């Protein structure tokens, strides 16, 4: 990626009492990308993000955001970035329109708030109290507040946690829309599916340390290249013929299905060609492609939900 870094973090450390929440974290976020910090609860995502936002004081390390020191120049920085905090709340009885007006009054540049609420599907809610909004509507309001100053960089912390799948998909579309308008997005999530679908690059964080950084596809290729084809056939010679494909491993599962494993990107092509060449009749054909979830398990030795 030729773009320049918008965020540079080097050797970030943060301790709470005896908990070392963030331990020597370094990464860069480039202009115009969606960068995700992913890891289980308690991994240090929020702490890292809040240090970068300048709301939390790090114990050590350097952070530069849009060329500013995020702790020292926090007020200059806040004019240029948008922030959505994890588990945020507003006053129960504040109206949507009042929250938006208050936020708009705080920034030098501001977008058309009516239009912004429209884009987020909140135009009918502008007189509603915060406490009467649904989870998805609250999150959309927080996105609206984060976008009100037309920021160059947007921070989103666990944006879709607690939302139903439909609301989650709607928010993913919104975020892609924000990026399409040329903004850089730094988000955290503990949902691997979210990271895989949304992020250009991800950093996996576990126990306060970055384990690896790359694109989701790059991480999968590097750590879990193995693909699997599972097929059902009556043909007893299938195993032997499939074994002839280079670099594959063939076995049978307890139901008698043939399992072909291999690291090559064209494993599927090889298997299909072999089946066609030998006229092997199959009654079922499934492929299993590794996901970020598998990468996470491989790198940390535990699943993200544990």
């Amino acid at each position, binding site marked *: 990626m030729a773009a320049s870094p918008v965020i540079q973090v080097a050797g970030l450390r943060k301790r709470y009492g005896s908990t070392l929440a963030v331990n020597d974290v370094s990464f860069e976020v480039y202009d115009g990308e969606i960068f995700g910090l992913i890891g289980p609860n308690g991994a240090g995502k929020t702490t890292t993000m809040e240090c970068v936002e300048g709301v939390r004081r790090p114990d050590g390390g350097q952070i530069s955001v849009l060329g500013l020191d995020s702790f020292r120049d926090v007020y200059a920085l806040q004019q240029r970035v948008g922030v959505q905090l994890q588990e945020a*709340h507003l006053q129960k*009885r504040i109206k949507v329109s009042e929250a938006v007006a208050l936020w708009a009054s705080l920034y030098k540049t501001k977008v058309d708030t009516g239009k912004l609420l429209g884009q987020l599907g909140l135009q009918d809610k502008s007189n509603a109290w915060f406490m009467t909004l649904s989870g998805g509507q609250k999150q959309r309001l927080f996105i609206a507040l984060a976008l009100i100053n037309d920021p160059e960089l947007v921070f989103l912390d666990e944006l879709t946690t607690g939302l139903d799948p439909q609301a989650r998909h709607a928010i993913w579309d919104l975020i892609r829309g924000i990026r399409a308008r040329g903004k850089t997005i730094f988000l955290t999530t503990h949902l691997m599916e979210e990271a895989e679908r949304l992020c250009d690059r991800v950093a996996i964080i576990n126990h306060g340390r970055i384990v690896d950084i790359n694109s989701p596809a790059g991480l999968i290729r590097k750590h879990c290249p193995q693909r699997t084809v599972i097929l059902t056939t009556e043909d007893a010679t299938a195993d032997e013929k499939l074994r002839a494909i280079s670099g594959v491993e063939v076995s049978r599962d307890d139901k008698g299905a043939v399992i072909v494993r291999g690291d090559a990107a064209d494993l599927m092509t090889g298997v299909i060609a072999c089946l066609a060449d030998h006229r092997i009749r199959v009654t079922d054909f499934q492929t299993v492609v590794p996901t970020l979830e598998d990468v996470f398990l491989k790198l940390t030795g535990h699943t993200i939900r544990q």
Partner: protein
Amino acid sequence: MSGLWNLAWLEIKIFAREPLGFISTIIIPVIMFVVMGRSLGGRADPSERLRTFVSADLPVFAVMLIALNAVLSLVTIIAIYRESGILKRLRATPLRPHTILTAHVLVKLIFTSVTLVLLALAGRRFYPVALDVSWFSLAAALIVSSVSIMSLGFLVASLVPTARFAQPIGTLILYPMLGMSGLFVPIDSMPPAMQTLAHFLPLTYAVSLLRGIWLGEGWLAHGWDVAGLALVCAVCTALSSRVFRWE
């Protein structure tokens, strides 16, 4: 600066949307004051002690209650806003931290003033004895006292562990101070240890100042009270700026 007024005005509107809180802060102290005054002052043959109580101590007591009410509600609201992450959310905007907190003080001062005006109007109309007092001086004294007690409120707000405890802990700290303030028992007749303690408490100076103003004494006679309140305010503000928790 505009952020301060915007935020304060917003908080006033939000507060007014909660009818119960509105009634208990503004209406109840006024009603209590009038009802107590009527029932005590309306007796056929009031004793001398009762008469001074109704004409001087009860109004000061009512005014102190208004001030304490405001501080308690400040402590509670700060604790709730902290616990639910509202303070943190506001702090992650270009609003300066002190602006966020000052807005709340301003809101409470405005409500205190409104209550005082209602009290004055109710006093004119319904109170059994004529109240002859400079309302302007009284308002000024009340504001000076309130600001000082509110700075203490911020310390208390930092101490309460959760929002659920804010009201009870605030009450436990503030009301005993009222008991030692000289309003019910003259300071001179308290045990020496309590006398010393009383001199460290802002409410003692507030009561002395308010009572003096009520009785028509000048501000000059109460310079020490104002100085005491200012000192408490300075110390508490300095301390809270160190220990205040935003989340």
